[in-house]
């Protein structure tokens, strides 16, 4: 059991930010670049001409830049959490937070970009389709629930006796 003075919040926040960044990379790399089923503004600029494809490429690049910054912030937060002795170093908490972050990204990005602003959809040629709802339901809500369940399990880890290597080194 984690000690009464332990504080999981910094680890959960760091893992969640990393999950948001890595989830963004999965979206950008797999859906935008490898499968090319949509791009950042593919509903506004259908990538069926070189000019439109290049315009989308620039916005995809900016999207990746923001995911990179998010991931860098997550690494920094994780490093700082590792230096705090009251933060339990729980693998399940971290993995759960990563999955939760990925789910938050999918849910937020899906609601805003796919449904509210309609700037792109999961499979662009279909418009709003079952894929968009699966993206929200499975990639969003289910991932968040699985992440939260893992975080809850991790909070019971007996990690009071050994914290992160960084914190141990400072003991």
């Amino acid at each position: 059991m984690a000690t009464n003075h332990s504080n999981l919040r910094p680890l959960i926040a760091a893992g969640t930010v990393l999950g948001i960044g890595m989830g963004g990379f999965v979206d950008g790399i797999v859906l935008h670049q490898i499968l090319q089923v949509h791009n950042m503004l593919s509903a506004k600029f259908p990538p069926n001409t070189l000019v439109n494809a290049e315009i989308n490429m620039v916005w995809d690049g900016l999207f990746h830049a923001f995911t990179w910054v998010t991931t860098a912030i997550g690494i920094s937060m994780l490093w700082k959490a590792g230096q705090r002795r009251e933060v339990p170093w729980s693998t399940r908490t971290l993995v759960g937070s990563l999955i939760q972050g990925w789910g938050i990204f999918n849910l937020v990005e899906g609601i805003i970009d796919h449904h509210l602003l309609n700037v792109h959809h999961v499979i662009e040629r279909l418009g709003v389709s079952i894929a968009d709802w699966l993206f929200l339901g499975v990639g969003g809500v289910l991932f968040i629930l699985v992440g939260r369940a893992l975080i809850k399990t991790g909070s019971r880890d007996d990690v009071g006796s050994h914290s992160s290597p960084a914190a141990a080194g400072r003991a």
Partner: protein
Amino acid sequence: MSERAKALQKAASGVLGGALLFLGNSSTAWGCPVCNSGTGKAVRAGLFGQEFGFNLFVTVIPFVVCALIVAGIYYGPPGQRRARKEE
């Protein structure tokens, strides 16, 4: 170097030279946003049109919302925050 290897090298350099000559003269191939070509200019016009601000907003806004959610996770609801400070 054998005659066969020399012939292959010559053929390869010919293909590469031909490709570069073709790409260099093709306006569609050099359509990058910083290229000074018809396609490049069209890409810039599409990027920096009237909706540039809105497009930037839609690219950024999911990250802003996610950051607010993480802040909520880190600091907790206002009631819990006050209770922790009083401890």
